[in-house]
């Protein structure tokens, strides 16, 4: 979807860290902290669609909100179109908000039920003072509605009068009315029926061509991401596990976690499905309050060794991969690896206090 040459980076994230305090702030007590995002560096290039994938709780939504400065960063930098927007105040950020917008997940929660649709879509115009009179604003809103495939005559209706897919279109219209450069889509189709998803995805594709847009596309659904993205970044527990062009990732995942995820994606051909190796990970995702030491995935990883506990792997190209395919793993997946086989547990006397997992068991059935 869209051109993804090595254009310059429209959005650059450098070592972004975001921690949330847990529970009430009490005087004197050191609060526990949720490590939602723990040092993520990423680039979104002009014109491309970058997918950001991960399970619930891996930090992708938080990262998206840091990128659009809906949240303040704990540390790190956000650079948009060459401008450092990390520490800008709300007022200073305002002109930038015309350049990037967000499309939200919940078509029912993201539109104010007590406002008319035309008013909702026209919000950005009013906020940024770009509507020349109510007639002008109406015209631009109706243009946006047509752009996303809505009937502009429904300008005065309430969100409740639209279906889920239509409401998502309204959300897209609102995001596009100022003709931004970057759209951050936070699970835009997850809440829609499968048959509607295709429509919205097609819409997004068309819009990207027409309006020269760049997308940061967040999802937990790997099959959607495959169709939609040029490059994919996979997150686990607040850090990036692997980033690669989409074809490479799906053909040859290098990170064991990514391999396991991909093995679980449903495949229509039953024969193919039977022959496929299902990798079932042991244990559950640990709590982000006390993430495991070293590589965060090590307690569940079928290839884990001593080194994985002691040293967090860097996100670099591994053995033979091209420069754009980076993996954070000491022992990446090689062809011929059988990740479903049980493996001897690494001995781990240095296991962190507070790490409430059982000792690593073998992966597989």
């Amino acid at each position, binding site marked *: 979807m869209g051109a993804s040459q090595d254009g310059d980076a429209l959005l650059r994230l450098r070592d972004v860290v975001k921690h949330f305090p847990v529970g009430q702030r009490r005087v004197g007590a050191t609060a526990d902290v949720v490590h939602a995002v723990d040092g993520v560096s990423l680039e979104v290039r002009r014109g491309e669609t970058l997918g950001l994938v991960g399970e619930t709780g891996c930090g992708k939504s938080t990262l998206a909100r840091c990128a659009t400065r809906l949240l303040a960063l704990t540390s790190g930098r956000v650079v948009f179109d060459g401008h450092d927007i990390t520490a800008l105040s709300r007022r200073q950020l305002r002109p930038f*908000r015309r350049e990037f917008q967000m499309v939200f997940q919940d078509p029912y929660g993201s*539109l*104010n039920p*007590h406002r008319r649709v035309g008013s909702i879509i026209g*919000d*950005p115009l009013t906020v940024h003072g770009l509507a020349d009179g109510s007639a002008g604003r109406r015209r631009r809103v109706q243009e946006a509605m047509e752009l996303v495939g*809505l009937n502009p005559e429904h300008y005065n209706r309430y969100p409740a009068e639209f279906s889920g897919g239509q409401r998502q279109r309204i959300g897209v219209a609102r995001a596009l009315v100022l003709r931004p450069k970057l759209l951050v889509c936070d699970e835009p189709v997850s809440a829609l029926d499968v048959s509607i998803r295709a429509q919205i995805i*097609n819409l997004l*594709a068309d819009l990207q061509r027409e309006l020269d847009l760049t997308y940061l596309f967040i999802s937990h659904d790997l099959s959607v991401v495959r169709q*939609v993205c040029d490059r994919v970044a996979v997150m686990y527990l607040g850090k990036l596990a692997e980033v690669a062009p989409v074809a490479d990732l799906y053909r040859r995942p290098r990170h064991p976690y990514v391999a396991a995820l991909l093995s679980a994606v449903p495949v229509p051909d039953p024969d193919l499905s039977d022959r496929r190796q299902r990798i079932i990970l042991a244990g559950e995702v640990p709590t982000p309050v006390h993430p495991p030491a070293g590589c965060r995935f090590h307690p569940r990883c079928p290839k884990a060794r001593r080194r994985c506990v002691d040293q967090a792997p860097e996100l670099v190209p591994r053995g033979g991969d091209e420069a754009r395919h980076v993996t954070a793993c000491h022992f990446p997946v090689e062809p011929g690896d059988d990740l479903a086989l049980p493996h001897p547990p690494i001995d781990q006397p240095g296991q962190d206090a507070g790490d409430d997992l059982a000792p690593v068991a073998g992966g597989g059935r």
Partner: protein
Amino acid sequence: MTITAPGQAAAGAAAAPTVAIQGRGPWRLAWDRLRRDPAAIASAAVIVLIVAAAVAAPAVAHAVGHGPNDQYPDVGLTTAGLPVGPSRRFLLGTDNLGRDLLVRVLYGARISLLVGVAATLLATVAGVVVGLAAGYFSGLVDLTLARFMDVVLSFPYLLFAIALVSVHGPSLAITILVIAFFSWAAIGRIVRGQTLSIREQEYIEASWSVGSGAARVMFVEILPNLLAPVIVLATLLIPTAIVFEATLSFLGLGVAPPTATWGGMLSDSLAFYQVAWWFPLFPGLALLALTLAFNLLGDSVRDALDPAGWRTVIG
């Protein structure tokens, strides 16, 4: 990269059916429900009647030739100095000073309506603004404002009202201010609670991402959601304010005599009820009618605006 979905028409899938189904917004629906509610119609009629009577008070006074404060000891009192009953000259009788009760009741309606509505308006505006601010900003602002509301709600209000009014001397303005001051916190608290939960909705986040500032989010996004409960609260506050005013007047602390107030008349009638049944009856009936009408209307408005809704919030 296009995905073909089965049976997909092009943008036509998004267009509404060509049948002219005129969608009715929630306000229109509520109004229709209200229109069909007999209790609402009846109570609205009573209120309109009383308002009309209040407006017409000077005209009526002129027509019968008696002012609200004019005393007629010779024709208005019996030889024993007691009030006379309803007659052709004094349609509703007289009070203990020989004043025309009909005219006084009509003028009393003005006071009750004025104080009731004005105090309610003030209290509602204050309550909404403070509640919105407390709920939206949270943190220190919320803490202070919420505590402030708690403190106001903890005041023994009648006691305080009496102290305040008696020390300053009775006056219309003070009455309105006192009633408003002791009513706003109840609204503020509810508005705050609603704001706190609305704030968590995704469309608030969407508004921020568009670049809206605090004021816009509070008044354009959150307030429309509050309008329905606030309207109900306000409508139900009016009769409370009216009763509050009547109580203050009853105790001699509302508007100063000789201005006619229903509460004042009832207080004066205490000594005479055994011999002049009309003296407490008519002001009492008027007070009851107005208060009951507003209560009924408030109930109907609540039913119309949200038949399922936040009953337990408001009670």
